[in-house]
């Protein structure tokens, strides 16, 4: 890549530069934490602990990764509340759909003999 290809953009204000530098350190720490958590998850499933404990830990770690990426990488904590509400609405409907379907289509509510014919 030659220098001629590089078109410098106007430099951002100093205060803005400082906030971006601060974010950089947050991003690095978060990336390290996410990588470590993925490693822990991989090991967890092979440990001889009770299933409920493993399940709860996996759920908690997954939830942490999910929220961390949304909050910091997607800048949601730096942005306006309305964006959180917009995304939260979609998330709430998705979660509600999952819970509702889980209850409606549980084995006790489904005639297994009838549907296995198809």
């Amino acid at each position, binding site marked *: 890549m030659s220098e001629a290809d590089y078109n*410098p*953009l106007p430099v951002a204000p100093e205060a*803005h530069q400082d*906030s971006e530098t601060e974010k950089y350190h947050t991003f690095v720490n978060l990336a390290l934490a996410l990588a470590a958590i993925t490693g822990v998850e991989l090991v967890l499933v092979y440990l001889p602990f009770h299933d409920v404990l493993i399940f709860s830990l996996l759920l908690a770690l997954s939830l942490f990764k999910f929220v961390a990426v949304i909050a910091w990488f997607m*800048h949601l904590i730096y942005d306006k509340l309305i*964006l959180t509400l917009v995304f939260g609405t*979609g998330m709430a409907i998705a979660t509600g759909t*999952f819970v509702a379907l889980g209850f409606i*289509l549980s084995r006790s509510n489904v005639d297994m003999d009838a549907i296995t014919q198809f």
Partner: protein
Amino acid sequence: MSDTATATHDDGHAGLVIENKKLLMWLFLGSDCMFFGTLISTHLIYRKLYPEAYDPLTVYDLELTSFSTFILLMSSFLMALAVSAMHKGELKSFRRNTIGVIFFGLIFLACQVYEFAHFTNEGLTLSTNTFGSTFYLMTGTHGVHVAIGIFWLLCMYFYSYTGKMDAHESAVDVEVAGLYWHFVDIVWIVIFTAVYLIEYI
């Protein structure tokens, strides 16, 4: 955008309180959440209804999937750096990080293609059983999202060489592309736990 709106953003930019593109992307991501929520729900419910249909542990390779997850998380990190670089007006840093994201995205796709080929060789296809149908539909849809993200970032990368990039407007464009990429990452975080890890308990 209206010239009369002069509110200042938390990140220092002058302009409207929320850019239209950003708001639209968040609306899209909210609706995409419902889309993936339905796909993941369908897979999990069929797993619960037909546990005997297929034993995925015979084909799963958890080390490979963990590697894919790690790659996608690191691509998200690079994407955050690319957005930050664009906000600072550092075009070179933006290009470097964007190429990194594209490279990691391609590695993820390669892992998925390898996994699908392995599963097919083991006899699990889209029409084998309910597990195959819901698994391929869900992970395949996610893969398509990754491919679209890679194409989008490639377009932005080449566009950065045209000299038409505007400091504020392009920063918003990159941020919107970044939101999409991070969303693809969080969907995989859910799939990794709900579809792969849970099977090992």
